[in-house]
Every structure is written in C-alpha cells, then in structure tokens.
C-alpha cells in the first residue's frame, strides 16, 4: 500500500517538535515547514516512507534547499553512545555511529563529543558572563539561525556550550536540555503515510479529538476485532439487466439474499474514521497496487500531462462537473485531487439499472442525516458526494442509506418514486441536460432500491457502531438484520449508555422474558419477537444477544532510554472509551429451562448460573420429532418439573415465577402441537 510517496498523496510530516503536519504532496510546489525550513515537494516524491530527511542549507547556485536522508544510525547516535558509555565500553562504538553524534563541523572552536564518543560537553571557551545562564542573546541566536548551517546542529551545539551552568547539570538534565534545544532548532522531518493508525492518532492528539469521538487506537483495534471485521470474500457483481430507457422498475435486478456475504453494518458518527478503519480491515480502503515501479512511472507520465493542462483548464473542468449533477457540497481543501484524477479513465457505463455494488465484502452505513458525514475519507481520496468519482475501491463496497430508508422506505422519495421512462426517440429529442437528469434519476432509483432491499434482507455478518445516538434505539432496529452468531461491537466514549444497554440483557430480564412473564410476548412467534418494538420494561428483546460484555483498554507509553526507562509523565486524557460486545443469538422456540443437573446437588448450590424456567414446546433438532413423541416428552417434562417447583422457587429467586407461567405456556404448546 504505502511504499513510495506518490504525487498528490496525503502524507504526515513528523517534525522534531513532535507534532505532525498532514498535507497533500502536490508536485511542483514548495513545502514550507515554518521555522524548520522549506523545500521543493518533488524532492520527496518517489521516495520511500518513514525516512527522515534533513533540510540542507541552500547552496549558492540553487534557490532551494536540498534534502539529505538521515540514516537511522545518526538518529540513534546519542542513545547508542550513552549505552556504550554505561557499559564501560572502552572501544569506540561503530564508526558511523560515533561520527553522527551531535557535533559541530570541524574546525570550529567548540566540541560536544570527545574522541571516545562521550556526550558530555566540554569547551575551552571562556565563560563570558556569570550572571546569565544562557550567554547567547536572542539576537545572537537569530543571527546563528539565519546564517546557520548544518541543519540547526550548530545552533544547538553553540547553545549548549554557551550555557554557563552546563557543568553543573547532571547527565539527565543535560540530556533533557539538549533534547529541548534539538526539538526547537534541528531541521529534520519524517514522512509517514496516512493510514488509519497514524491518521487517527493525529486526529486525536493534534487535530480535533471530538470529531472522532475520542476514539483511541486501542478502541479501533478492539472494535475491529470484536466486530470480526475482515475481508468478506471475493467481489461478486450483479449482472447488468440491460434495461432500456422505456422499461420501468420491473427490470431492476432483485436482491438475491443467498449471494450476500461478508457484509457489515456501520453506524458512524466519527466523520468516517470508523468506516475508514473497517474498510482498511476489509481491504477496500487503498487502491489496488500493481507493480510499484510501473505504477510510479505511469503516474509520473500522467502527472506531467496533467501539469501542462492543469493551469488553463482547471476552471473549465470544474464547470463540466457541475453540469453533471448536484453541486459539490463543501469539500474544503481537496477538490484538486478529484479534478486531477478525473481524466484518468472513463468507466464503461452500464445500463441505468446496473448495480455498481459488490454483493460481498461490503460496508453498509446507516446515517441519520440525508447525506452521510464521511468527510475524513477525503484523506484517502474518496468523496462520497462526488458524482463522477474516479475509481476507488470504496465505490463498489460502501453502501449508505438513511434510517428513514431502512425503517420506512415508503416515505422516502427516491425509494418510492417510480423511475421515469421514455422511448428512445423521445429521449433523442431532448436537450442533453434533460437527458442527463432522466438517466440520473433512473440510476438513483435502482441504487436506492437495491441498497434498501438488500439491507432489509438482513443476514449481516456483524454490526459496528460508534454513535452519539442511544445504542438501545440502534440495536432495536439493527438486531433483526444480523445473522445468527454475528458479533456486535459498540464504541462509546462514556460507559453510561453501554451500561444501560447491557442492563437490557440482564439475567433477571432474560429470565422474566423466557419464562413467559411478559403478557405481550405470549402469542408471538419467534420472528415477531425478533422485531420486538420494545416497551418500557423490555426496551429490547433480551434473548437476542449473548455474551454481553463491556470493556476498556488503555495503552501506557514508556520512554526507553539507557538508565532512564519509565512510563511517560503525561498522556492524553479525556474520554476513556468503552466497547460493548456481544453475539447475536437465535433463541429456541418456546420456553427454555435451565435448572442444572440438580439430582445430587443441593438446590442452593446451583443458584450461581442463569436460571430460566419453563417447559419447551418442541425440540429444536433438525431431526423431526413426531407429534406424539413431542407431546409425550412435554408431558413427562411437566410431570418432572412440577414437584421440583417449590424448592426451586424458594431457593433461587430468579426462578420464583416458575409456576405461574405454566398456564400461558400450556396454551402456546397446544397451538404449537396443532401446527405440527
């Protein structure tokens, strides 16, 4: 995915100060890092990620700064030197490491490192002023920075040496002082790719944590794993029905529920960060790469042609886009990529009713506004609002619909309005704009219909959720859509909503439910109970989830340096973040008993586990049980249960309601028996 820095790629530039700057590397521009210098973007294009560059001083012949790749040995030189010293290593460390220790250029009067590689600063220079601790004035420092060469190392070295109290400093404070100065003056940066882990970290720590609901890396890991989000199988596209323009919705391809596999439901209020994380886990976030070098060359050529046309045609280009459809809603910084990539390839367009989505390995986003807010996906060059999008894997794997479309599709205009039809002659007589509109409407209809119908067909492989909405209300409508055994993973910055949700599945609630104590449930079938719309006492059907659990994780970072290893003193606080996990269960029909194997055990001993009382109406075995057998079994069971009831009721409080349930169940059983 991330091998070489491609033109127009979004990257992170890690600066010595510890902050990261996220920018798009546009060819033929100058990248400015403020006080750390400026350099032409082309000097990092085509270079690998994770390298550290140093901004060199301008030479006399050139108008720009060149870059130097800083080898890792130089980055770690001090730590290595310290280690060697600590070990009493008389022999100097590897040659390269020793050279690289922060030291001034030769011939200068100061030196920070002796021949043995010790970092303790010594100088023959006389102390100028005892009153001032740092003898260099601000003007002098500025002067040094201006004429400064050697990427700021001179400044640091001079600062160190003109620090009068340097010899009074302990090794630790010395190291700290130097680190401080290095952060401020050294002109280095590292280029890191924008991937989910790195970007989320940046968004959390430097940009706006609330935008991604304070979701830390640990949480992305947990939610992804507990949601079992993974590659959901090879793409299987739906055949184009080749419908003509005068054919109505009957020619739309019906949803084939058996073909739908590896689909995850998402409710995302993190501006698309969660979707990006899931897409990464499913392998649909980054474009497929061919051979690296080839791709790079191809892109290079394309960039060149673009560069020549770009200046003149940018404005026009924008106009063409507008004509096609909805005006682009605010895409603050990034219309450029869209425009430049646009010319790449024209997708072969199918008929209006062709469905562009894969039936496998998809994400279905349910959103509460008419357009989903997935703005952060722009950093991966995907814009859900763009009408004619350049190829992107998310195009075929990201489906989105509103809650209205999911729950009351008949009220949604784009779902319920039948598509317009027109004969070919009629169509030919129209103006192009009207024709475009006609096709757009038909395409939108087919897509909406497919998304809504396939989502309502259910059988999703999992539900992942990071939303500010009440999770109970989300689960009420999404639980019926999940396949049996499908995981549910819900993130929340605070524990309260998740606790309230977990309480809906508490043991007493479940017991009361399964023992038939809820009058509303008595005559309902399993399917009806799956779509239980909830009441005050039972907001959700408590038997639909198993293994309900809430957890949190926090990573504690450590500083690892020779003789100075300890956890970091401060870290980001804010929301702790919690994850609710469970699996979708398929409850057995009728009542289920769980009285344990209590033949030899005292009743009080078995009180520890979930008790649910009642008699089953029928066995859920695939092997069909004959009517009379079932009845016999049931009868026998009832006979078994009744005498046990009193002791049960007294000992186990959850079972207290056992006997009173007998009547409703009996009724249901009779019904069941009649059906069989």
């Amino acid at each position, binding site marked *: *995915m*991330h*091998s070489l820095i491609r033109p127009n790629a979004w990257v992170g530039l890690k600066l010595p100060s510890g902050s990261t700057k996220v*920018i798009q590397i*546009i*060819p033929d*521009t100058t*990248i*400015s*890092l403020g006080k750390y210098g400026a350099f032409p973007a*082309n*000097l990092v*294009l085509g270079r*690998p990620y*994770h390298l550290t560059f140093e901004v060199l001083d301008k030479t006399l012949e050139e108008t720009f700064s060149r870059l130097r*790749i800083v080898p*890792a*040995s130089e*980055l770690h030189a001090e730590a290595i030197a310290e280690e060697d010293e600590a070990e009493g290593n008389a022999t100097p460390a590897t040659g390269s490491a020793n050279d690289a220790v922060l030291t001034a250029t030769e011939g200068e009067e100061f030196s920070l490192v002796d021949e043995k590689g010790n970092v303790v600063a010594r100088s023959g220079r006389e102390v100028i002023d005892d009153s001032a601790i740092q003898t260099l004035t601000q003007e002098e420092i500025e002067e040094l920075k201006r004429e400064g060469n050697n990427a700021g190392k001179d400044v640091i070295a001079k600062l160190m040496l003109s620090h009068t109290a340097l010899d009074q400093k302990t090794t630790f404070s010395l190291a700290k002082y130097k680190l401080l100065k290095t952060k401020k003056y050294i002109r280095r940066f590292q280029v890191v790719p924008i*991937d989910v*882990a790195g970007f989320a970290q940046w968004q959390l720590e430097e940009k706006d944590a609330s935008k991604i609901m304070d979701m830390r*890396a*640990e949480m*992305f890991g947990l939610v*992804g794993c*507990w949601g079992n989000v*993974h*590659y959901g*199988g090879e793409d299987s596209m739906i055949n184009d029905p080749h419908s003509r323009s005068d054919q109505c919705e009957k020619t739309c391809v019906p949803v084939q529920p058996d073909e739908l596999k590896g689909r995850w439901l998402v409710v995302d209020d993190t501006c698309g960060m969660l979707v990006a994380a899931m897409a990464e886990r499913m392998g649909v976030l980054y474009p497929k790469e061919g051979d690296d070098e080839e791709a790079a060359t191809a892109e290079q050529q394309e960039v060149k042609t673009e560069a020549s046309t770009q200046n003149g045609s940018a404005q026009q280009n924008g106009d063409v886009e507008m004509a096609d459809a909805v005006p682009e809603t605010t895409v603050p910084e990034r219309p450029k990529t869209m425009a430049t990539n646009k010319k790449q390839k024209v997708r072969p367009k199918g008929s209006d009713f062709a469905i562009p989505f894969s039936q496998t390995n998809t994400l279905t986003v349910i959103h509460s506004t008419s357009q989903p807010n997935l703005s952060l996906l722009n950093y991966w060059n995907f814009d859900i609002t763009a009408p004619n999008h350049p190829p992107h894997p998310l195009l075929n794997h990201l489906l989105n619909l509103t809650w209205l479309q999911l729950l009351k599709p008949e009220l949604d205009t784009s779902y319920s309005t039948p598509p317009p039809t027109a004969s070919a002659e009629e169509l030919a007589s129209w103006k192009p704009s009207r024709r475009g509109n006609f096709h757009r409407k038909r395409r939108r209809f087919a897509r909406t219909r497919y998304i809504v119908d396939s989502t309502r067909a259910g059988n999703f492989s999992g539900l992942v959720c990071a939303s500010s909405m009440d999770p109970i209300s989300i689960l009420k409508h999404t639980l019926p859509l999940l396949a049996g055994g499908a995981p549910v993973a819900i993130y929340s910055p605070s524990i309260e909503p998740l*606790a309230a949700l*977990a309480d809906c599945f*508490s043991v*007493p609630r479940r017991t009361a439910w399964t023992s038939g*104590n809820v009058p509303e449930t008595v005559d309902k079938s399993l399917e009806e109970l799956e779509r239980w719309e909830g009441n005050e*006492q039972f907001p959700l059907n408590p*038997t639909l989830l198993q*293994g309900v*659990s809430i*957890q949190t*994780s*926090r990573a504690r*970072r*450590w500083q690892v340096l*020779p003789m100075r290893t300890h956890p970091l003193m401060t870290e980001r606080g804010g929301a702790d973040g919690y994850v609710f996990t469970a*699996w*979708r*269960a398929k409850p*057995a029909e009728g009542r*289920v008993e769980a009285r344990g*194997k209590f033949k030899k055990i005292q009743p009080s001993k078995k009180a520890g*586990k979930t008790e*649910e009382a009642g008699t089953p109406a029928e*066995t859920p075995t695939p092997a069909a049980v004959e009517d009379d*057998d079932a009845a016999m*079994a049931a009868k026998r069971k009832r006979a*078994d*249960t009744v005498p046990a009831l009193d002791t049960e*009721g007294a000992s186990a*409080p959850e079972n207290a309601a056992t006997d*009173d349930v007998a009547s409703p169940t009996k009724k249901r059983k009779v019904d069941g028996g009649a059906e069989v």
Partner: protein
Amino acid sequence: MDDTMAPATCSQALKISPFLEPGKATKVGSLAILQLSRDNLQPVYLQAPAGKHDGYAEGAVVNTRYGSFPHSTMIGVPWGSQIRASKVDTGSRGRNNKRKRNKSDDDRNEGSATVTEEKTEQESTTAEVNDDSSAATKKVVADVSGFIHILPPTPEVWTSSLPHRTQVVYTPDYSYVLHRIRARPGSVLIEAGAGSGSFTHASVRAVYNGYPTEGERKGKVYSFEFHEQRFHKMNKELKEHNLDSLVHLTHRDVYNGGFLINGKSPEAEAIFLDLPAPWEALHHLSRRNPKNPEDKDWVSPLNPKKSAHICTFSPCIEQVTKTVSAMRRLGWVDIDMVEIANRKYHTSRERVGLNLSMDRGVNNSARDVDEALSRLTDIETRFREHAAKSKESDDEMDGDEDDGLIKRCEKKEQKGRKKKVKTDHKPASAGSVETPASGVPLWMEGRLITRGEPEIKTHTSYLVFATLPREWTDEDEATAAARHPVTGEQKVIGVVDKAARKQERREQLQKATGNRKARRMERAAELAVTAEEGAPGVVP
C-alpha cells in the same frame, strides 16, 4: 471407526475456514464454539450422528454442567442458536449390558471427533450396531437441565476457549498489535513463537484476502515454533481449521535459523516476535547482512519495497531494554514501547433499601437518610409503647435494661420487616409478573451500576513497536530525482508566511464576492491592453 482422523478429511471438503466464512448454519465436521455461560466457552468439532459413539446411543455427546448435548442437536442449526440439553444416559455407557431403547434410523455421514470432552478412551464395546451404514442413533429428548448457545468460531472466542499450551496473547493485546503493525488484507506477516495459536488465528484473519492460487501473492502468515510438540499440535489445528494454506508453520529455532523459507524470502511487512530473547532474532530481520553489508548472497526476509513494522512481546523490562538497544543498532526507527491495560466491567442493579425483598445481592440497609430516620422513629415509638406497658406491670426498671429493651425492639422490628417482605413478595411471585410490592419489576429495581471485574490483569507484556524503512540506495535516489526533477516551484503549501496568506485570502475573497464583477474587470483590462497595442497601428 477411527474418529480422530475424521476432522481433517471433513474440513477438506469445506473450502473456506469457518473462522473466515462460517456460513449460515452449522455443518458436520466444522468447528463450533459452545457458549456455556458468558465467559465459559468450549470448542467442539461437530460429528454426524453415526450410530453409537463412545457408549452414547445418541452419537457424540458433549457433557457440561448444564446437561448433555448430543451433536445431532447442534448440526444444521443457524449459528447463534440456543440449544436445549437432551436427556442422555451418561451412567451406563461404561457398562457392557444392553439397554432397551427406542431407536429410529437417521441419516449419517462420517464421524468426527470432539476435542473437548475428556472422554474415556475405551472403545464402545456395546456391540449393538452391526451395520455401520444403517446404524441406529437414539432419538434425542429435550431435558430441562439447561441450554447453551452455539457460536461460530472467531479468533476472539477461540482465544478464550483454546487449549492452552503456553501463555496466550489475549484480544486486548493482539487487537492493538495488529492495528499498529499494519496487518491488513494482503500483508505478509512473520510470527515467531506460535505458542497456543491465538495470535496466529487473529493475524490470519487480518491478512486474509482470499486463498492463494498458484503463484499468486496473497496475505499470508509465516509462523515459527521451536517446541516440537507444540508445532505438531498447532499443525493439526491449522489443518482442522482449514487454515493450512494461509499459515506456513515451520519448526525452527529462529535465533539461529532465521526466517527464510527454503532459502527464499517470505517478503514480510509485519513481524510479531513473542520470544524470550527477541534481540537474538532481530539481526535476521534486516535489509542487508548486518555483519557484512556487502554480502550479496544474504537474503532478507523482508519485503524490499515496503517499510516493515515490528512488534515484540516481552513481559520483563530488561528484555525491552535489550530489544530496543538492538533495534537502534539495526536501523529501526520510531521505536515506541507501550503496555496495554484492559478492564472488563459488569453491570448490575445495586439494590439498597429496607423494603426490598430478601434476595441475594440486596443490601438490606437504609436507602437514604429518610428511610433510616423513619425506621429509627419506628423503633423509638415502639420502645416507648413497650416501656409504658412494662412500667405499668413492673415499676422496677433499670437504665441498663433500657438498652437491652431497645435492642430487643430493634430485633423484633427487623424480624417483622422480614416477614412483611416475605409475605409481600410471595403473592408477587405467584402473581402475574415478578413485581414486588413497590410496583417496580425486579429487573428495574435499584440503581444501575458498573464495576470492574474482581480480578484484573495488571500486566501482560510490554509491546515494543518499531519501523524499518525500505532500503534507499544512491541509485534509487538518482532515478527518483530524475523522475521528479525540481522545476520552478511557484506555489507554497504547508506553513506559509503572513504576506502569502494574506494575498491568498484576498484572492479568495475577490473570487467569492464578485465573480461576475471580477470577470468584467478582467475583460475591461484585456480590452484596454489590446486597445493600447492596437492604437498605434490604427493611427497611421
């Protein structure tokens, strides 16, 4: 009937591992996880009911503390199904005598074994079944002893149910590690110290992007295990889970043997080392021979085109120090060490109050000051009544006895309350819903609280992360420089100075406020220019 070999043959018929695509319903031969209670999970390979098995007339049976579950009741049901216990005769199977049972024919496939039940190894000697193909399997009858849920296998449930061979890398750790080392579909991952296989299963899921066909590069895990028995067990497990073409397991000491496969590089981008001394294996994971960079024959196990991300997993700080030191010397950058603290929370209803039922978990003390006050007043009044009564009967009362009387009153009051609660509760339980006198149902009574688990894992291991950039030679730099030559850059991106920013803003504003106006002005300016140019020509 050799049951132990069966799962391998069965799983070959299934194409995709149940970990990656479990399908809609349980199948014969597939791995399933039985959830007995929230944290009690048990893996089972489902066997077809093929006559008697191990003395059970119902075929293979799983016995739990919640009852017996014949496999036949768990096959062909949707995942997540609740399964009732069945009435199974567990007592007589060791004995040789025949039992008269109601039998019916059932279709069957080849059997498979269960890994979970600690079954007695003895062969079923009850030679009731003569013909294997028409063997009779006892029809099952539901029992009241309990139920379980049957879950599809995922790395998470597998991790909490797998047979332990070593310390297990649990979900909080591996989820974070896989996120940080960028294990994604299509990645190639090296794992050393396969151990019990929890990380292996999680990493396969992360890198899986389809089963590889000939010559195709797909996401793959190269796993190394030093311990021979663990290696064999793991190998068997991978076959049973149909992951053997996605995981290449090698029995090797990686400190000396390195990470190459038959002398070839696996071309890995992600590495996870769960070894006692990761620093001794690190030198194999370089771009060039660290001892002799000029060595042309040395093959790196890393992908030459990508940055490699590593994580080492060590419990002790001394191991970390050594690992980090070795990483620094081998050119790894972005070295970062973290430890993960995970906590699980239970939610419950905290029921405090004097008028609540005497159930388990109820704190029968005053809910608030008001309740305490009313109770004290109650006692006080009673005491006074009592005192007045006894004064009438007996005038010789001591102060000492006063206290005793109060205590007695208190006790009496308590007893009375208990009785009252009981009588309050009884009709409730016999009534329609488990509603105590208060009208609030039991499951909504009290305050909803969360509390941590009684025992927390305070330390699992230290995780050291680092990145090794791809090698970049002078030639590479030259080609890149030729491909992206520095031309006359005009635009500045990133941090721009104040003047440039102001200029940009001005332009933007102009564009925004009066597009038409600006264009008209532009046109006017153009006209003026042409007029100026044209003018001299016209005049003569």
